[in-house]
């Protein structure tokens, strides 16, 4: 039993079999990467995990509880946070306010009015937010408008927002997509630091093999909606089926 | 049964106007992403094109007739239209009588021009602005346009009759095998329906079968990509705006004999046409047309005495009830694409 167990998940869109009999187990405190060519069903799978899509059949269990049929915010409350391909942050809010929202969410659950208190009265939470910002090297930008940040900073902010929730599982959807090599390396370093500092499980969907092989403990290769192989990185390199899947794509 | 057929006819006729206005609104929204609150005003200007042409054609010179007196007891001033003098009385009267159909030709260049000027001069600057700003500026424009019309034409409705050959009514029921006098329908409304079908057909074939239309449709789907292909999409969108204005204008021209035009007729249609667009699905042209006819027919059915006796007041609110039900059951409208205008 892993932290996250996906069993026999199927998903069809009209005539297209997007996912077919996907089985996957993500072990606690591991970094699990899902790779595969374009259209392999990686994003569909991810969306099934966070409640944006509901699989036609099969089960998705997280920490022993099913996530199926739950809304995204409920799944988040169970301990799954998600980093998007393009950073999703609150662009109209300041960096600091971006950090406060997940803190309020964690404290209050889905809804609590707090209409008559000032944000600045939340001393304990402010300290926590500042500490987290410091960890991702963004404390000096706390009053900036989040929408005006560079892409790399937006990515850091988004990760900080996810981490401050202390999730059990962090889902990363191509965290380095569209980044320059230097930024990519920075992100890899950041993720490694995060990994080393706390007990966290990560599940990464990634295109960039460099990122995958630098971080992952285990790798699942997905092709045409079905897992081809699942193994440790060393064995994935040069695996004939993987080559076939990627070369097939190249052809 | 005959009552239902009659109300369906009515609905199709009402629906024609709704569909034409909604079609233009959807074109503008789909291509430019602009919520145009001045669209009702364009419809109204179309109707006033008919009024204007009627006035131009009946421009008169004045002669004094000493044998009669006016209300103040002065010698009567008799106005004779120039066309009477030029072409003889019967031909002249005939020309004036046909001013509404003639106004179709007159209105197309006028409306295209108004559309171009509006897009280049104002709307262009609002593509990237929030919808709320677009609403405010186009609403302001609508007020200005209708006040200008009011200044020149007054607030009272102005009779703009159809040619005599097309007034009167036609016993539709006999054709279908009903008794005479059961389903009677005015010629002009049949003309209006046919005309609307023609315009809708023309717009669709234009979008479907021309390169221009293809580019515009592609632009509606994904503006950025089309821009990347090096196609000057902006120019085409300007033309599209002109076409949308012309469609609204044509709807207005032909509507003039049905109800005498007045300066606020655009506002009367504005809210309704937005409901039509949304029920059809924002950005969906077939949806707009379908919803226009559907709401027209439902509105007609709701005004039947039997229905009103069953649910008092239903004729006042039917459109809104339908809108609420559709939006709750089918959030994207009848034929809308996912994700359009939901954020």
């Amino acid at each position, binding site marked *: 039993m892993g932290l996250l167990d996906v069993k026999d998940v199927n998903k069809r869109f009209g005539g297209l079999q997007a996912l077919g009999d996907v089985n996957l187990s993500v072990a606690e405190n591991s970094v699990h990467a899902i790779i595969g060519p374009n259209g392999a069903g990686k994003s569909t799978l991810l969306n099934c995990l966070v409640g944006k899509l509901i699989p036609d059949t099969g089960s998705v269990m997280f920490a022993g509880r099913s996530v199926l049929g739950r809304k995204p915010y409920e799944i988040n409350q169970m301990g799954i946070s998600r980093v998007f391909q393009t950073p999703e942050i609150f662009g109209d809010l300041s960096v600091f306010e971006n950090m406060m929202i997940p803190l309020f969410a964690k404290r209050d659950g889905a809804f609590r009015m707090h209409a008559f208190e000032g944000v600045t009265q939340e001393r304990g939470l402010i300290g926590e937010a500042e500490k987290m910002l410091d960890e991702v090297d963004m404390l000096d930008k706390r009053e900036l408008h989040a929408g005006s940040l560079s892409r790399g900073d937006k990515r850091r902010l988004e990760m900080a927002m996810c981490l401050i929730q202390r999730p059990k599982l962090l889902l990363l959807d191509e965290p380095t997509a569209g980044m320059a090599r230097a930024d990519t390396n920075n992100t890899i370093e950041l993720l490694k630091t995060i990994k080393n500092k706390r007990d966290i499980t990560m599940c990464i969907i990634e295109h960039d093999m460099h990122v995958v092989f630098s971080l992952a403990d285990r790798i699942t290769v997905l092709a045409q909606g079905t897992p081809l192989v699942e193994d440790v990185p060393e064995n994935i390199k040069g695996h004939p089926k993987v080559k076939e899947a990627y070369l097939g794509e190249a052809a | 049964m005959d009552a239902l057929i009659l109300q369906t006819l*009515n609905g199709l006729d*009402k629906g024609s106007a709704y569909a034409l206005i909604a079609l233009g609104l959807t074109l503008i929204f789909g291509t430019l992403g602009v919520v145009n609150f001045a669209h009702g005003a364009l419809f109204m200007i179309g109707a006033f094109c008919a009024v204007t042409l009627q006035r131009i054609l009946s421009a008169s010179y004045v002669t004094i007739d000493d044998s009669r007196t006016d209300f103040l007891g002065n010698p009567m001033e008799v106005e004779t239209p120039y066309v009477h003098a030029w072409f003889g009385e019967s031909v002249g009267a005939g020309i004036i009588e046909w001013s509404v159909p003639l106004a179709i030709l007159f209105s197309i260049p006028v409306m295209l021009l108004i559309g171009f000027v509006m897009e280049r001069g104002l709307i262009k600057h609002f593509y990237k602005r929030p919808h709320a700003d677009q609403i405010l500026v186009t609403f302001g424009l609508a007020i200005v346009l209708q006040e200008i019309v009011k200044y020149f034409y007054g607030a009272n409705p102005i009779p703009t009759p159809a040619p005599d050959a097309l007034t009167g009514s036609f016993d539709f029921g006999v054709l279908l095998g009903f008794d005479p006098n059961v389903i009677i329908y005015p010629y002009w409304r049949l003309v209006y329906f046919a005309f609307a079908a023609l315009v809708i057909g023309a717009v669709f074939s234009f979008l479907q079968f021309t390169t221009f239309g293809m580019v515009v449709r592609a632009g509606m789907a994904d503006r950025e990509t089309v821009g990347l292909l090096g196609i000057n999409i902006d120019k085409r969108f300007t033309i599209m705006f002109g076409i949308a204005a012309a469609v609204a204008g044509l709807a207005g021209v032909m509507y003039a004999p049905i109800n*005498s035009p007045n300066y606020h007729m655009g506002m009367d249609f504005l809210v309704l046409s937005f409901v039509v667009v949304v029920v059809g699905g924002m950005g969906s042209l077939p949806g707009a047309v379908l919803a226009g006819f559907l709401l027209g027919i439902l509105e*007609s059915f709701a005004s039947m005495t039997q229905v009103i006796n069953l649910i008092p007041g239903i004729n006042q609110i039917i459109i809104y009830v339908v809108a609420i039900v559709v939006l709750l059951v089918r959030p994207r409208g009848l034929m809308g694409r996912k994700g359009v205008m939901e954020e």
Partner: protein
Amino acid sequence: MTKRHVTRRGVLRTSALAGAGLALPTYLRAQESGFTNAPTGDTVTLGFNVPQTGPYADEGADELRAFELAVEHLNGGGDGGMMQTFSEQNLDGSGILGKKVEYVTGDTQTKSDAARASARSMIEKDGAVMISGGSSSGVAIAVQGLCQEAGVIFMSGLTHSNDTTGKDKKANGFRHFFNAYMSAAALGPVLEGLYGTDRKAYHLTADYTWGWSQQESIQSATEALGWETVENVLTPLAQTDFSSYIAPVLQSGADVLVLNHYGGNMVNSLTNAVQFGLREAQANGKDFQIVVPLYSELMARGAGENIAGIPGSQNWDWKIENQLGERYKGTNAFVQSFGKKYGFPPSQAAHTCYAQTLLYADAVTRAGSFNPCAIAEALEDFEFDGLGNGPTLYRAADHQCFKDVVVVRGKENPEDEFDLVEIVEATPVEQVTYEPDHPMFSGGSLGSCNAGA
């Protein structure tokens, strides 16, 4: 809860700071005079509250022309208009009680709310002692209520609902215009003469108070003739296309269509009815007929040739003195001075507003005071003549004018756009008079006159 009403109306108090050079404003709302906005200087301000935007803007504009003309005449300008023919010869062109008449204007927007806001600004800011004008009953009733509370006189403009002097009548409000009951009572005999007693009527009625009031009146009048009412369908006020209401009429077995509509509604429903061929149709072996109980010149102009032959009623018509003679004197005097100033003949809305202004000025003169209670007393049961309607009574019981009603029908071949209707007859006042406690007017009471301050 408190019941302290120490200073019942003692709400407006004037205080002056010592040392400040106290120049009297053009008006005072003072206790010393005992009523709201008592004029103290050498001028008096009247408030003309008419629709200037919205569908009735043209009617409002015509009312405003009449008011301006009336003020000009009161101040001694122009040819004096109906002041010459008015049976009371108290007005001499020196203003009212020697005070020059000034006026302020406002926009009712044909909305009760906006009309009250506009009237309040006239009372509170401009110090108007009288409010007049308006083009719909909802507005008239709302503003009448306001004037009652504020303690000024309201001389209503065009308002035709029974309620204005029925269940919503007020001691400070006066109506010169006729009402739905009178329309129906006047039309009844004419309809009998034109179309006989064996008729089946189909009613389309605007779905608001005036429409109901009109429909109820005409239904009872026609049923008294022996007509049968087949159906009464309520149409939404915002309706612009009436096709779905008109289409079923022929099938219903009716042979008369009564359009209880006004303004844009009436123009559209009549146009639609003619489009559907109702004017040429046959039903029950008779020619199908259309009736529009309340006519107005502006509506007739909007409907164009569609009104040909269609009967209805009016409060007054500019041709009446020429056609029906001396009894309606004043008409020509008014038409002359209005026509000379503006270039076209006045509408009935203009006439009623002009008459109301003169009636007010005359009442002030006779009362010798601008105090609303004194004016009301002067107007109550006041009989007069020479204002174009023939001998007229301002009845004390409900503040309604009783006078002849003009029955008209659309002309077949109008000479110009102002000559659209022909007069069928003037129904004598006796036929349209009713008891103050008539069921259509019951409920509500005048209350007592309020002088404000």
